[in-house]
């Protein structure tokens, strides 16, 4: 049994250039060849990456005071509504907000060509964005309306602040009951079990390489959108109580991260507005983590391969929407990545929503940053809630308003 490594020791190696970094994909083979003990001695850091639609994302912007001053109460960025219920010139632009006047699903399936995620991508790309705002006017903020171009370089602050990213595992969507293709946040799901749509980087995914949140916690430095940012809380719907397999890997959606990062340091390659036909707008975002190989256990966790990770197959034509039924089965990411899975005696083609090419590129980028001494590891100031501490994932306690409220 090796002695453990500390964060300080690993960071000292990063500074001296002696650090050994591999990606989570490479770690599968390293542990396969050397065994856990030797791999833990040799490797200091394992990098992960994921790039896929992450709806619960958005950005805070402070656009600076105008003359005369104005407390904006309603605002639009390129005609996409932004939340203005904050101080005078602070806004929050949510990724899934769609353009005012978008036909939505009135002509089904709607196209959702432009929304908050596209505004964020345009800002990151350095494009001018039109800000329109109105206000009721006060003694201290007399201005009532504004219509102006803004540019990220002129904003006081522009930072991404995402309530939920990097889901630890996710459903595989199929369409068992509808007599037509369905349009979901998991893409177009073909009728008659005609497709199985999945969305995880599997063996490269951050939280699948740290199943019990030993390394990734509050204060962890991460790759976000091409910049260095942080985990600032557990993500919404963080549910460590999801059943786990013998490796401790959740067999369905489980942990999540709240993340923050400076939009001004980001790159539009990793911050991409996407339109999900018939569903809406989302943000395809690149996230990566650097996991310290503190001991053999971390070497073991980070050696997880696609064959070791299974995801639940869920019907999205009825069961998901109505909260009915059980998963139709479980399938490994190795099977999903083969291009075809067996389900109910049939061969079902698979289609991913998450780019493995980009996930790999993020893990490689992070590796090169660490090797160049540009990215050091930060020890969490507080761990994410564990299975023991978490109340789990609650459904809404629906209380019809006809009944007496007032608790």
């Amino acid at each position, binding site marked *: 049994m090796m002695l453990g490594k500390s964060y300080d020791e690993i960071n000292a190696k990063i500074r001296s250039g002696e650090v050994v970094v591999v990606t989570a994909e490479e770690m599968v083979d390293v542990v396969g060849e050397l065994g856990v003990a030797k791999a833990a001695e040799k490797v200091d850091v394992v990098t992960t990456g994921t790039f896929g639609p992450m709806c619960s994302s958005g950005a805070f912007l402070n656009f600076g005071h105008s003359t005369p001053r104005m407390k904006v109460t309603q605002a639009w960025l390129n005609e996409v509504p932004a939340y203005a219920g904050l101080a005078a010139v602070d806004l929050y632009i949510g990724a899934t907000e769609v353009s005012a006047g978008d036909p939505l699903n009135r002509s089904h399936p709607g196209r959702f060509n432009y929304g908050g995620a596209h505004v964020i991508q345009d800002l990151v790309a350095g494009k001018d964005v039109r800000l329109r705002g109105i206000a009721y006017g006060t003694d201290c903020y007399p201005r009532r309306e504004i219509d102006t171009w803004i540019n990220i370089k002129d904003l006081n602050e522009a930072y991404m602040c995402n309530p939920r990213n990097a889901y630890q595992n996710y459903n595989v969507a199929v369409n068992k009951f509808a007599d037509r293709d369905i349009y979901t946040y998991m*893409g177009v799901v073909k009728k008659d079990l005609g497709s199985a749509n999945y969305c995880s980087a599997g063996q490269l995914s951050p939280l699948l390489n740290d199943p019990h949140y030993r390394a990734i916690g509050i204060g962890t430095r991460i790759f976000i959108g091409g910049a260095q940012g942080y985990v600032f809380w557990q993500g919404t719907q963080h549910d460590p109580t999801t059943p786990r397999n013998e490796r401790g890997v959740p067999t369905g959606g489980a942990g999540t991260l709240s993340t923050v990062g400076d939009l001004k340091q980001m790159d539009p390659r990793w911050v991409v507005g996407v*339109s999900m036909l018939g569903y809406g707008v989302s943000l395809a975002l690149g996230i990566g983590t650097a996991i310290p190989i503190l001991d053999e256990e971390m070497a073991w966790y980070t050696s997880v391969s696609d064959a070791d990770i299974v995801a639940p197959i869920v019907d999205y034509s009825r069961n998901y929407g109505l909260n009915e039924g059980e998963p139709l089965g479980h399938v490994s990411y190795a099977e999903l990545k083969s291009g075809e899975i067996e389900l109910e005696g049939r061969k079902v*083609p698979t*289609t*991913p929503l998450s*780019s493995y090419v980009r996930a790999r590129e993020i893990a490689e980028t992070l590796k090169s940053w660490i090797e160049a001494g540009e990215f050091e590891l930060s020890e969490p100031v507080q761990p994410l809630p564990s299975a023991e501490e978490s109340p789990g994932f609650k459904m809404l306690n629906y209380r019809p308003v006809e009944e007496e409220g007032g608790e």
Partner: protein
Amino acid sequence: MAERRIVLHFPKELLDQPVISTTVSRYDVGFNILRANITQDQEGLMVLGLQGELGEIESAIEFMRDQGVRVQPLDQDVVRDDEVCTDCGACIVVCPTGALSMDLESREVNFDAEKCVACGICVPVCPPRAMSIHF
């Protein structure tokens, strides 16, 4: 035997003319209609696979041009912007001909214009809008 995939644009005046049947009765070519519709501009649009000897195919195309049909090769019609494509794979399952497929090793999404029949289904399905269709 060769096959040439072409896009035919029929101006409004030609919509009631039996251009295709006249063509195949004059030239020794077979045809496979991959797509046909009338656009919003009341122009007829047809995607056609022409089979036969290369010389016959070219003469048939020339004949249709003489009738007033605008003809362009299919491979110029559906275009992928590789800068915009993220290789996610959302398009693979909707592509009816396998023109969009995943390389199982590199995990890149391949676009094989030879197999594309310009149905256009991928265009609104592509989340970052990397696919476009130009007729």
